[in-house]
């Protein structure tokens, strides 16, 4: 068994990465043979940890634990589509490539979030941490040009259904999984562990 207490962590100090702990674990490989005993190949075990930077999207992922949903808007008066609001968060306007303005759309989401489409599946890939079945919903907001993908841990999705954002404020993962959605009218007591409305 891998001892997780040594698992690698990273800090940024003075503009450089500071790595601490173990980032990969080495296991012996094994031969692969067919039923007649002939060698077909070998296994190549790889257990490693990637390091990933959020860059200009970091405020979005850091605000979820505070119950805040951030979007961005192009405020360039010379842009062909000035005023366009992006959720998912876009750092730059895809039309004029000027830096977008970050703003809080939590209230807009609470008042207008509606299911555009959805799907339910029992199937997941390796590394999935969501409970099955998974219910994806794609969410429309008033005044927003895009349709955000998220998940619905409570209730059954329906096109046109009103939903409210909930936030993993207690044990945040600092990933998109800190944001989930529940049907309007869901009591606080039914939210998944660690999630709150604010």
């Amino acid at each position, binding site marked *: 068994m891998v001892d997780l207490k040594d698992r690698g962590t990273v800090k940024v100090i003075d503009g450089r990465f500071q790595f601490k702990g173990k980032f990969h674990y080495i296991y012996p490989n094994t031969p*692969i043979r*067919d039923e007649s005993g002939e060698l*077909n*190949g070998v296994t*190549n075990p*790889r257990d490693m940890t990637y390091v*990933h930077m*959020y860059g200009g*999207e970091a405020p979005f*992922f850091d605000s979820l634990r505070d119950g805040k949903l951030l979007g961005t808007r192009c405020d360039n008066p010379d842009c*062909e*589509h000035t005023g*366009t609001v*992006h959720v*998912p968060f*876009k750092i730059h306007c*895809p*039309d004029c490539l000027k830096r977008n303005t970050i703003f809080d759309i939590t209230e807009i989401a609470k008042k207008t979030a509606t299911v*555009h*489409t*959805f*799907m*339910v*599946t*029992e*199937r*997941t*890939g*390796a*590394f*999935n*941490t*969501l409970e099955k079945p*998974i219910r*994806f*919903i*794609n969410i429309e907001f008033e005044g927003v*040009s*895009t*349709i*955000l*993908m*998220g*998940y619905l841990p409570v209730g059954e999705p329906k*096109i046109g259904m009103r939903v409210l954002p909930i936030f993993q404020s207690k044990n945040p993962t600092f*990933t*998109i*999984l800190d944001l989930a959605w529940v049907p309007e009218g869901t009591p606080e007591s039914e939210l998944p562990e660690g999630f709150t409305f604010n």
Partner: protein
Amino acid sequence: MITFSERQLKIPKMSKPVYLVTGGMSKFGRAIPEKRTEELVIDAFNEAAEFIGKTSAELKKYIHSCYYGHFADHFGDQLLGEAVIHDRLGLDPLGNIGIKTGGATGGSTIWEAFKAVASGYSDCVLAMGWERMDEVPTDEGNHLISCAADKDWETPLGHIYTGYYAVMAQKYWQVFGKSEDSFRETMANIAVKNRGYARMNPHAHGAMDITVEDVINSPVVAYPLRALDCCLMSVGAAGVILADEKTAYELTDNPLLLYNAAASHTLRVADRRNMEIPLLPNESPDQYKDLGERFPGGDRYPGFTGFLAARMAAYYAYRMAGITDPNEDLDLVELHDAFTISDIQSYEDIGIRPYGEGRTYVESGDCYHTNPHTGKPGKLPANLSGGLIGCMHAVGATGIMQTIEVAQHIWGRWAEMHEDQRKWDTFGRKKPSDWTDLQVKGAKRGLAISHAGVGSHVTATILIHPDHQLERRF
């Protein structure tokens, strides 16, 4: 972008015409543990050489640059895999490049090869694609495929690509399919058709003799998609040789004119903003005015129901090749049937049917080799190879396999390449006792659509017999 400039909408121009000389493919399978990838690639190359009566060594002497389609490096834990293949094909010191555009990799590889010939850079090129998806457990494979979605905003949600696709299927199913049992049956009929055609194809690994009920009763993947609505996950290789006119006729008496155009749309469906529907030559500006009235919820374009990249690939390619109406000007098509429902969606994107009416292509019987209602030849047969559902989806090879399949019909050599008992024996597959020749009689022009992810990249490859060129008015 949601508006396009005149310059961006320019119909692509070539400095010289480009010809398809030959093509070949390997066996396709869910797993091929007895072979390395290079062996599959060499099988495909050898078949291409043999097809025009050349030895592989002779054919290699004509090649000037090489284009390699292989999508998922991380499946094989091998970077620069293209260099391994290039070396094993013995094509050093020729320039070569790897091309990766997800499910459209095969089509994109032809796009790059096409431009190299069209520009005059090379007289003759190799476009070879392959994929190997059998070397990890299925759940890790699903994770790796889900990395082709946005890693911050989508992949953590289940690590399951099918899910990101299924939300689009759901929307189309409810808005344009109106959740009708009859629409569900039409979807199932595509799976029955393509798996049935795959029975006649020795390369195919998804051949099945099934009914609509079998599809509708197969396990749910993500409602309304069921297991038999979904494409295969495959191993295999396919390659083509493209050349300019002079070189093409040195290699064969019967090369085909080839046109290819590519287009794109956002990686995340989430980012798709509303826009006007770009029109194909067989559509009129007012025909979609009441789309939202006829199909409530269907007024958002492309929304979650249309593939802008497919529409724009057709937009460019039809005009390059002189196609006014795909139903009249084409004799067969190979479409990217990743899922039965996305097959229906693509009929609309490429103008075989207007938006909202894709299902009638199947229901009319037009998409069959033999129309089941009339017993006469189908108007525009689709996916006689078995497609991605019945033949294979060895990602980097898929768009190339489709192109070869279309070409074999135009060459009138489909039966020769699919009937031969030796091929069935070599691939370890049993030829069905009711094997049927699916040759489209008198085929002169065809189309292959190669499509990535939730619609991020699409290419349209058009093949035309040189004696049956269309007037290019655009």
